[in-house]
């Protein structure tokens, strides 16, 4: 009888469908109506039981009665429910007409939930679906390794610097950067071809131009070489207001600098000139002795 079954399975002995968690017991039996392990929801411990299950998008009502308890093959009777929601509810009611209220109610609830998730499935299949592409471990590893090696082989910093210097040489920057060596050498070459008097006049003009234009870069080379604070300062210094200030300040000191040794000259001038005197203490003692 069902009470005996429940007293065995439910509480004391082992039920293979029972799953216990900290707060609750679940029943893994596929015919279970609620999914919990209860006296009223256990399909094994109730001789009269009903469930709603869906297969391939269609819902069926499964019923079990005492009369068929001896025939396991015919135990569960299956009724196809209509696709129309209200009609299906009526069909459930018809089939379970004199059955306990609990089972009827739970069947209808379960049926509602199933129809809702079926609707959701149909809606989602119409939308864009994410295609899951499996990663192949060996290939991923191979590609990562190759990427690392390619990065090392690329020598990006050098490549970029080379390219920028190329562009500078090819004059893509125009008049912004006016490096003295470049311009000076060019001027020298021009002088060889022309007469001296003309070249002198050119040279003076060139000097003035060079002094005026190179001022902002002189600033950079004076302060530390590869300092990144430098870069930030220089960004702001590219504005015209500061350029004028610098010009006024530095005109006197840098007029002679031709740019041959860009770093050493100004750097030397900036360092304070210190003279160190050494005193010897032994002198007074010898003097007294002599006296």
């Amino acid at each position, binding site marked *: 009888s069902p009470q005996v079954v429940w007293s065995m399975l439910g509480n004391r002995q082992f039920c293979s469908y029972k799953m216990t968690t900290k707060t609750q017991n679940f029943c893994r039996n596929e015919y279970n109506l609620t999914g919990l392990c209860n006296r009223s929801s256990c399909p094994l411990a109730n001789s009269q039981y009903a469930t709603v299950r869906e297969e391939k998008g269609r819902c069926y009502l499964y019923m079990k009665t005492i009369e068929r308890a001896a025939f396991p093959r015919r135990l569960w009777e299956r009724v196809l429910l209509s696709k129309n929601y209200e009609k299906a509810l009526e069909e459930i009611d018809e089939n379970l007409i004199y059955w306990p209220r609990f089972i009827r109610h739970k069947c209808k609830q379960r049926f509602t939930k199933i129809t809702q998730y079926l609707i959701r499935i149909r809606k989602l299949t119409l939308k864009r679906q994410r295609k899951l592409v499996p990663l192949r471990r060996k290939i991923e590893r191979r590609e990562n390794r190759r990427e690392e090696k390619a990065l090392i082989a690329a020598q990006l910093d050098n490549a970029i610097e080379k390219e*920028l210097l190329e562009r500078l040489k090819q004059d893509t920057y125009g008049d912004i950067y006016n490096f003295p*060596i470049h311009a000076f050498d060019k001027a020298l070459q021009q002088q060889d071809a022309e007469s001296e008097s003309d070249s002198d006049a050119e040279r003076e003009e060139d000097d003035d131009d060079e002094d005026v234009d190179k001022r902002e870069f002189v600033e950079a080379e004076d302060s530390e070489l590869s300092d990144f604070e430098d*870069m930030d300062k220089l960004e702001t210094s590219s504005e015209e207001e500061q350029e004028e200030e610098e010009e006024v300040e530095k005109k006197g000191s840098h007029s002679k600098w031709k740019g041959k040794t860009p770093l050493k000259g100004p750097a030397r001038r900036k360092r304070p000139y210190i003279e160190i005197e050494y005193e010897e203490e032994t002198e007074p003692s010898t003097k007294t002795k002599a006296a």
Partner: protein
Amino acid sequence: AGEGSGAVPGDGTDPPAPERVLFPPTFSVSEIKNKQRRHFMFLRWKQQQRKEKLALKKKRRKEREALGDKAPPKAIPKTIENQRVFDETTVDPNDEEVAFDEATDEFAPYFNRQTVPKILITTSDRPRGRTVRFCEQLATVIPNSHVYYRRGLALKRIIPQCIARDFTDLIVINEDRKIPNGLVLSHLPEGPTAHFRMSSVRLRKEIKRKGKEPTEHVPEVILNNFTTRLGHSIGRMFAALFPHNPQFIGRQVATFHNQRDYIFFRFHRYIFKSEKKVGIQELGPRFTLKLRSLQKGTFDSKFGEYEWIHKRREMDTSRRKFHL
């Protein structure tokens, strides 16, 4: 009995110097069953090999010095780039056909300065924090770009709207498990669509020794090593993202460097310290791309016409063959 078993044999039990070890003719280190002993013998064998190699080098160097001027020139070491299988689609700078193609392809209006690039950056559904930040940073790097979030909109419907609003390019960053891992770059009015796999994404805060934020100036573009026909078209796609008139005052440069089919993107600020020396400072995000497919029209995964797809079985057979 002379050779130790089990415990690591010290040098006392073995012949004192490795050079005098005489192995029986058919001996091989891998046949010793004892693992520790085998390891020991292998190390000894390795030492011997190294010694021989060193001796050989010295001998060669001596010969070289002895010959003096008559010595043969030093051999160039082989690198993968040296040994690269010659690709028949390598672009010759003077090739007329290529020049003609480029004058009439989808990027011609850009290179003729008729269109100004306007870029839309978006992500896949529900982007996580890292991807969002990456999109923002990318938007600061590429001038005239806008970030829009995709709330479940279909790309096919976004594209006509973009064209209507005069966007020239569309970038979609695909995300997987909270990191961006794919990039789809689509040139909008009927342009080619390139799908890349993105890796090693570093945001600005993860870059060491970085500078301040990128300013609004238009950066210069450097495209390195795009040699083949395919590489050339991809290079043009990248170039078309940036406006044609770089502002040299900003001193910013965006680099797309192709090495062995991996495209490295960097964003730097440069400064010329002298005529022969330039300093660069990295700002901005960095990432690497690997081309997966190039489609002729705009993004259409089912019915699009693919110009090039990476087929692993056919294309990854040789270590020295690259396609870009």
